[in-house]
């Protein structure tokens, strides 16, 4: 029973209380790079969920054999190998998705959430909780990415998922898309606003 409750917190905590982006402040760089539009943000989120879950499981399986001195290198080799294999499979079986992802392959490997979770969780836990931790953190990361991308695309391009949502009459009345929204600094400002809102709701994680 206790095991079950623990697994549940491992899975659900990263959604809000222990969110990788707004609480652990991991993966900010990719949150900045891929959130100008909603679609790449979702694709990036999905791929991080997959890679994070499986690299967590692999490292968790290996955890008792890895020599401490080279553990980071081992983690890196596993993550990089996994990402490249996934990309190869996509190129063979889902070419369009692979083309969309091509920009992100490098970003996934260097995403600090991956190394962060491998170090902090997978090295010390069994495969199943590690898998849940990976999926949970991946979802937590995706949630923030989607929120940021939603505002950036809506206010920056007047579209959502590439479809125009701001009516033409707005533009006729003098409304203009905010060009600043598409530029990277706005991603940080929005992430900052999310952290602000999040901390005012969850008083217990205020420092």
């Amino acid at each position, binding site marked *: 029973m206790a095991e079950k409750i623990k697994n549940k917190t491992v899975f659900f905590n990263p959604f809000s209380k222990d969110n990788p982006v707004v609480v652990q402040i991991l993966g900010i760089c990719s949150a900045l790079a*891929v959130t*100008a*539009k909603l679609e*790449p943000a979702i694709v990036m989120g999905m791929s991080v969920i997959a890679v994070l879950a499986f690299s967590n499981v692999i490292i968790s399986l290996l955890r008792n*054999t*890895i*020599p*401490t*001195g*080279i553990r980071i*290198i*081992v983690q890196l*080799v*596993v993550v990089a*190998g996994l990402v*490249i*294999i996934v990309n*190869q*499979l996509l*190129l*063979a*079986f889902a*070419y369009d998705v692979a*083309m969309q992802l*091509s*920009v992100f392959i490098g970003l996934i490997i260097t995403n600090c959430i991956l190394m962060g979770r491998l170090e902090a969780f997978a090295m010390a836990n069994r495969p199943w909780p590690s898998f849940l931790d990976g999926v949970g953190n991946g979802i937590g990361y995706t949630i923030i990415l989607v929120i940021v991308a939603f505002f*950036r*695309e809506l206010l*920056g*391009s007047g579209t959502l998922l590439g479809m125009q949502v701001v009516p033409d009459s707005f533009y006729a009345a003098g409304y203009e898309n905010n*060009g600043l929204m*598409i*530029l990277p600094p706005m991603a940080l400002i929005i992430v900052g606003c999310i952290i602000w809102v999040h901390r005012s709701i969850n008083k217990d994680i205020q420092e």
Partner: protein
Amino acid sequence: MNKQSNTYTVIYIIVLVVVVGAALAFASMSLRERQIDNANADKMKQILKSVRIPIDDKNVGRQFAEHITAMLVVDTEGNVVKEGGADDMEIFNIDVAAQAREEASKRELPVYVCRLDNGAVKYILPMSGSGLWGAIWGYVALDSDGSTVYGAYFSHASETPGLGAEIANPKFQEEFIGKQFFKDGRFMPVTVVKSGQHPADGSDYVDGISGGTITSKGVGAMIDNCLRPYDAYLQSLDK
């Protein structure tokens, strides 16, 4: 066994690297054929998009064979050096990116001749260049007069979403339709300029993407670099 010893560490990392290396090599070898097929199908799709043919994802190969009547290689003097059908992989596989870096007179210049369902003949010319972060490429389809743009397609490897990546947006590509590559018999490639500006020499132009200046300039430079060598060939088409 002492897991912190140097021997264990060295053996561990060697085994790990060999295993991961083998897995990568195996994945790459066993999937190569499918990947090449996919890449070719994708290229066909892009070529067909430049002539505004609605793509049927499952039958791209057949659509390509139906519409592309010939593939040519021409030189800068306008001579046809090589000629082949839609299945001539040698011409199809010419690496446009590598050719674009060569001196114009040394290039192999592919032309894809396309016949639309209504019988009209279009000439599709491939292009390759660089944007802000990486490669950009595209195809321009010209009417049988060798001057009027019938359609254009651009794509990119890693331009910024929302800014430079907008060159892949059909809205940007549609702006090229109807533009002329020849003015009074002189070759004047369509240029990409900042909105509100006009090219000084009077050539046709489209508005660049605001915020995507370097990518827009890259598109302009790519059109100039890749299509100028076709000057003589395009002149030789009947006007």
